[in-house]
């Protein structure tokens, strides 16, 4: 019997010829990521070493990544002090993959990891964040763990008690219609599977839609697999993966790619026809409460949020800017935009998206998680309804249990910002010459060129100027600011 993608990765990580679902393993960890909750990890890590007479040293400082994103800049003295504690620890332990609150290299962990080439195909990645599932987009087995679990990883370099998960195979075929985005695919799937339908399982993505999709779109899809309870999502790596890692992330040497065996055994196979998909909305207060956008028609919203580890990437901003170009955010609506990383922010500046957003009346915030987890930067009032491109709509999620959060794509969010009520993005005008779904095409094109063309096509006026300015093909924002990976 052949192995699934994750079975193959775990066999390699434990030095075995074969493993199968249900085996309990202790795989070596290639990358261990934390954010502000690193403060708790540090506490638990020190507890492990308490009274042992041993010095508390992490197993490999080059394999630990810490990114500040959940509360940036600090919203309270408590957070500021936690961040300081982490900074001191990072310096003491010699942790190199550290992204502080900075305008050059900061951002959301699930964007910082891929764009800096920290995640490689075939590796094992763990993070103290449930959306660590995102990095399956690059062909890694990547999953969320708690802080104490991470403390043990820091001490031992392996993760205890990994039960090899069963795998659900999802095959997505066909071209996404105009106005339908990768977010709509994953919302549809979560609705279909329900919030616990993939609990303790991995979702492996196949099909022509996924093959044609950019890494950015794959990140969206893998990101939200956890909303169906999945341990992780994963896309078998391909030419697009290599293209992203070399072009975008500056990775020099990529390990040999492998996919699942043809005769791998799956718990379930789900087929989705992307060409028939409509924009989707997750209604309050569970992510699996998914309906086509038409079911939400007329629901008035007071806040629009575009951003988060799900949908704060350049193509999301491009999609929203194309809709907002020359339009205004409706009065009574607060529209907040959070580019997922400072690198993306800078590209959005160059492409003119930030200008488009501001002229429309949106507020462009700093890169970070923003109000997604309800800490700061956009709490909701009693009775407010928000439409967000984020990943969770649980009661109280955006800081107020007496408010409601709806989830949708960047296009749906932008269209709704203009009308002030949840709106089908297919019904609004879009400033672009060619009607192509954004994330579905970049696969083979050189992204730099493709982006420029795309941007130019959508925003003729602004971009012409920009394109001329950036003619000398320097790489202003492109170059990874971080030192070498391990």
């Amino acid at each position, binding site marked *: 019997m052949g192995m699934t993608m994750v079975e193959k990765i775990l066999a390699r990580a434990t030095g075995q010829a074969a493993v199968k679902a249900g085996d*309990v393993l202790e795989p070596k960890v290639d990358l261990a990521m934390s954010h*502000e*909750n690193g*403060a*708790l990890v540090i*506490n*638990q890590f020190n*507890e*492990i*070493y*308490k009274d*042992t007479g*041993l010095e508390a040293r992490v197993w490999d400082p080059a394999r630990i990544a810490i990114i500040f994103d*959940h*509360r940036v800049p600090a*919203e*309270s003295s*408590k*957070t500021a002090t*936690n961040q300081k504690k982490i900074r001191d620890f990072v310096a003491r332990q010699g942790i190199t993959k550290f992204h502080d609150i900075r305008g050059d290299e900061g951002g959301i962990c699930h964007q910082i990891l891929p764009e800096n080439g920290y995640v490689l195909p075939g590796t094992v990645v763990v993070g*103290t*964040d*449930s959306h*660590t599932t995102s990095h399956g987009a690059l062909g890694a087995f990547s999953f*969320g*763990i*708690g*802080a*104490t*679990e991470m*403390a*043990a990883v820091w*001490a*031992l370099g392996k993760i*205890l*008690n990994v*039960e090899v998960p069963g795998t659900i195979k999802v095959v997505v075929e066909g071209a996404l219609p105009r106005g339908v985005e990768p977010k709509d695919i994953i919302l549809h799937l979560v609705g279909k599977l329900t*919030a*616990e339908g993939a*609990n*303790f399982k991995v979702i492996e993505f196949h099909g022509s839609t996924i093959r044609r999709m950019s890494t950015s779109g794959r990140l969206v899809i893998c990101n939200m697999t956890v909303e169906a*309870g999945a*341990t992780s999502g994963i896309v078998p790596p391909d030419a697009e993966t290599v293209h992203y890692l070399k072009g975008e992330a500056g990775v020099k040497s990529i390990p040999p790619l492998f996919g699942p065996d043809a005769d791998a055994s799956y718990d379930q196979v789900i087929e989705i026809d992307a060409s028939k998909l409509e924009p989707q909305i997750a209604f309050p207060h*569970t992510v*699996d409460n998914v309906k086509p956008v038409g079911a939400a028609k007329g629901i008035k919203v007071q806040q629009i949020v575009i951003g988060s580890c799900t949908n704060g990437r350049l193509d999301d901003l491009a999609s929203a800017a194309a809709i907002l170009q020359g339009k205004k955010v409706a009065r009574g609506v607060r529209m907040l935009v959070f580019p997922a990383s400072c690198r993306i922010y800078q590209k959005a500046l160059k492409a003119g998206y930030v200008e488009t957003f501001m002229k429309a009346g949106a507020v462009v915030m700093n890169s970070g998680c923003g109000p997604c*987890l*309800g*800490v700061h930067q956009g709490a909701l009032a009693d009775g407010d309804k928000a439409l967000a491109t984020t990943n*969770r709509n*649980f*009661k*109280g*999620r955006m*800081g107020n*249990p007496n408010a409601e959060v709806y989830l949708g794509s960047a296009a749906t969010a932008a269209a709704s910002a203009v009308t002030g009520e949840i709106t089908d993005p297919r019904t609004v005008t879009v400033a672009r010459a060619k009607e192509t779904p954004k994330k579905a095409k970049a696969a083979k094109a050189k992204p730099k060129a493709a982006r420029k063309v795309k941007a130019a096509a959508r925003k003729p006026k602004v971009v012409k100027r920009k394109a001329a300015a950036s003619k000398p093909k320097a790489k202003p924002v492109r170059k990874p600011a971080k030192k070498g990976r391990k």
Partner: protein
Amino acid sequence: MAKVVLKLGADVSTDIIYPGRFMATVLPTETPQYAFADLEFNKKLKAKEVAPGSFIVADKNFGCGSSREQAASCLTGWGLKVIAKNFARIFMQNSINVGLNMVICPGIEASEGDELEIEGGKVVNRTSNRSFDIVPMPKARQAIIDAGGLIPFARKLVLQAKGHS
């Protein structure tokens, strides 16, 4: 024997158990004050009206959502036990790691106020006189529970590794 003090439905998220706005509080000694912060139950906890050892009973997928360990440690601090039809993966592992007493019981039927007892692999509802099978923990996870949580378990491994080197 102890009482069911809170009965919950399916898909109780970690945002309900421990709202995100309190996440800057991380230490297990400090998290219990925010347990179910947006429910009336929080007031009962703080008024000390809930006896340690009491049961929370929930439907499927308890603890879904974020990986925040506070959602487990805040319940441990009150000495609560959670019985659910099943648990979300990260929450379950966190519970084992921080010593939250949790029981997987797919058939559980109980109401608030019922007296429950855990006995020989079953949850016995003394009020309704019915009993429900518990799904045993896999061996590897039970070993962590038996060690008193992941910290003492990992400490042993760290010392072993040192001994061998």
